[in-house]
């Protein structure tokens, strides 16, 4: 699948010529928030390898100042953000949950969509040990020019409110 649109919708997010990771998050979802440190680690680790990270806020009606407050609270620095108020990026990416990660390669193709890792076996059922680091595996594969072993996994967290509910 080609994924050219995102550059139009969110020009600042996706640097052309780079592998991009979009993290769909929301400020009031506990699972999304609990991943804040891991998202920062991932962006640090893979930033060095030329990967570009973006945070895509999917809260209903969140404004710029609330986003800034949230970034500060959870220690996010230096990661570009997008407020996806109309769900355009989520819709194009087919992301349905926060937190969910989408990896787009340098050609604009979606190579991975799903969970960051398998810390949660189900809602309310965290593992004692993480046994699958799906996003890291996907990024390693993309950077190595190999096929992603599991290109799609089920993300667990809070549903992104679909646009048809927003307007009513």
């Amino acid at each position, binding site marked *: 699948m080609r994924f050219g649109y995102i550059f139009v919708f969110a020009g600042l997010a996706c640097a052309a010529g780079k592998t991009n990771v979009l993290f769909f998050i929301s400020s009031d979802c*506990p699972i999304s928030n609990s991943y804040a440190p891991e998202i920062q680690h991932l962006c640090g680790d893979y930033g060095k390898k030329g990967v570009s990270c973006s945070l895509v806020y999917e809260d209903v009606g969140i404004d710029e100042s609330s986003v800034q407050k949230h970034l500060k*609270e959870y220690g996010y620095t230096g990661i570009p953000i997008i407020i996806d108020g109309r769900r355009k990026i989520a819709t194009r990416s087919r992301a349905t949950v926060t937190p969910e990660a989408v990896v787009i390669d340098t050609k604009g193709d979606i190579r991975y969509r799903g969970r960051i890792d398998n810390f949660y076996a189900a809602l309310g059922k965290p593992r004692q040990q993480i046994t699958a680091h799906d996003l890291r595996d996907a990024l390693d594969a993309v950077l190595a020019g190999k096929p992603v072993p599991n290109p799609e996994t089920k993300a667990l967290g809070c549903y992104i409110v679909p646009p048809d*509910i927003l307007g*009513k």
Partner: protein
Amino acid sequence: MAALLPAADKVTFSENIAPIVYDNCVTCHRPGEAAPFPLISYEDVKKRSALIVTVTKSRYMPPWHATHGYGEFADERRLTDQQIATIADWVQQGMPQGDSAKMPKLPQFAEGWHLGKPDLILEMPVGFELPASGPDVFRNFVIPLNLKEDKWVRAVEFRPSARKAAHHALFAYAPAGSMARIDGVDGKPGFGGMGTVGIAPGQGNSGGLGGWAVGGTAEFMPAELAMPLPKGSDFLLQMHFHLTGKPETEKSVVGIYFADKAPERNMTAVGLPSLFGFGAGIDIPPGEKNYTIQDSLTLPVDVKVYGAAAHAHYLAKEIKATATLPDGSIKLLIWIQDWDFNWQEQYTYKQTFVLPKGTRIDAMLRYDNSADNPRNPSNPPKRALFGEESFDEMGGVGLNLITVNKEDEPALQKVLADGAQAAIRRGGADGTAKRYLEHQAARRPAAIAPRSIITLVDRQGKAVRTVGEQGSYSQPALSPDGTRVAVIRNDQGKTHVWVLDLSDGKGTQITSDPAPHTSPVWSPDGKQIAYISNQNEVYRKASDGSGQEELVYKHPAGPAPFITDWSVDGQLCFWSGDAVYALPLEGDRKPVVLFSGAGARGGRFSPDGRYLAFSSNQSGTFATYVMPLKNPAGKPLQVSKDPALGGIFWRGDGKELFFMGLAGLAPNGVLAVDLTLGPELQAGIPRQLFRPTGVNSPAQLSNIASRDGERFVLLAAPPASPR
């Protein structure tokens, strides 16, 4: 049934959904509470509708872990199948709001204390910093109570400050200062670990005071009941935190509500299996999905049941208890089918009920130690044994009850005590007790002792005098002439051998290097002290501190040795691992094994050097033994009747032996037994001399008594002082 369901086109928020949400969700889903988002307005609920449908269908929300129909509990947080279907229908129909005039009233929640102003408000003196991420945090906090008299508690109301991180809390009390040795030693308030009083077996003079979990509200106990809270106790708070993604600070406030007087009746917690499975032989192979333990108890008297609770660690899957009445009918007590360590709740029955004498209670716990259990703490799965750590297992069902007739209390207590004793015996025989003690010893090194004062007592346990100043002492040993005490003293984490003069309390530091020191023992003439340094090196030095220390022997790496005696014929006695050794101080200085296996430790030579007294758990529980040394055919004779461990000392004439009794796994009482040495070794019936009331009972390593057996050296709790 169909007629009860709302017509498909009539489900509205105002009339159908808001009542469900207000009754079941808003207690937590409102601003300032633990849940992540409010569910109050139409918009709030509409926004989360897809999530609400998913989590109600899976019954993740509202959180409730007991199976419906197995015991009818007060405050059951559970939606009916019909309510769940109604929510799904409403979403299917596009979530109409309906007539807002028909909205139910939002429940009113008390601001501040739910139960009114507490009689005593405790606050953690210092906040505990939680990191942003990582595994769940378990932390125990010690809050001084400074009670001037014994109290009885009707309710404990808990207010955590890190509301989103705090998941559950257990309350307990323990003797003041008894946790000082571990409290804050890592530089942060409290101490780690999931096992503590009220959970761990065998910790005397302590008890549970209930608990709290997310979504729970404090309640008073039934009027006729209250929980004891003795003076001289500290309040213990064990908390479990989920980390939230950002740093948080926990500084809990606890409100305690007292009863006016002692309750008529005492609530008894009947645990099955006894001691959370201490003697249940828990040994779960890796990969095993269906490992079960079971236990039964037949009630000796009629009881009235108020509530139930369950406890286990991460591998447990299923916990179930039933009662079979004498008429053969079965009462379902509780059934948790997907045990979640995060939800250790107290379940209170909607109505109390009587179980008649002769009722058999059966408890079953099932564990899943396969990789398919996402809660498995080990990856790949590892063998799990009984223990306190998160990768160990334990577990049981607790029933909170009273005997119907007050005069029946002793009969019930006896059955419970017998069960606990049997569990301790089994746990001794299968190695659980040994592992448990070693774990305790490793967790609470002798190097970190609570503050105490060296105290001499007589044969009745009455204090004769105190010696010197308060300090962090351990392993006191009286000199052979009874005029001095050698002791390990801890100053800022450095442990040194000191010798204190009984007459004026003046102390001399014997050791000087920064290595840890343990187990000082006097030479028979009192001129030298032998001790361990650097984990496995045996030294001796003049007892006035003069001259240089001499390295006598270096034990091979492995379990640390402890010296326990110095014989008249120039041999040191030490133990390491499960063996007791004699080490000649002259000649080749090669140690000889005197007895090995079965938890052997703490050996002491008879005054004539012909016998050895020591501790071992060869009978299944720790006991004191005497063994002839010069007769190769001589077998060890058990001289203690009830469990005993350490504190062994021979009177100078060899006709009386002292040792420490063991209650559960804690020392209780100095005992004495008359001995007849000779070809026919004979022992009388042990008698208790006194029960030491201190923070640190006589150590199993030391010379506890004077040669005439008239004076004993103890480490007593310092006089209470406001902290």
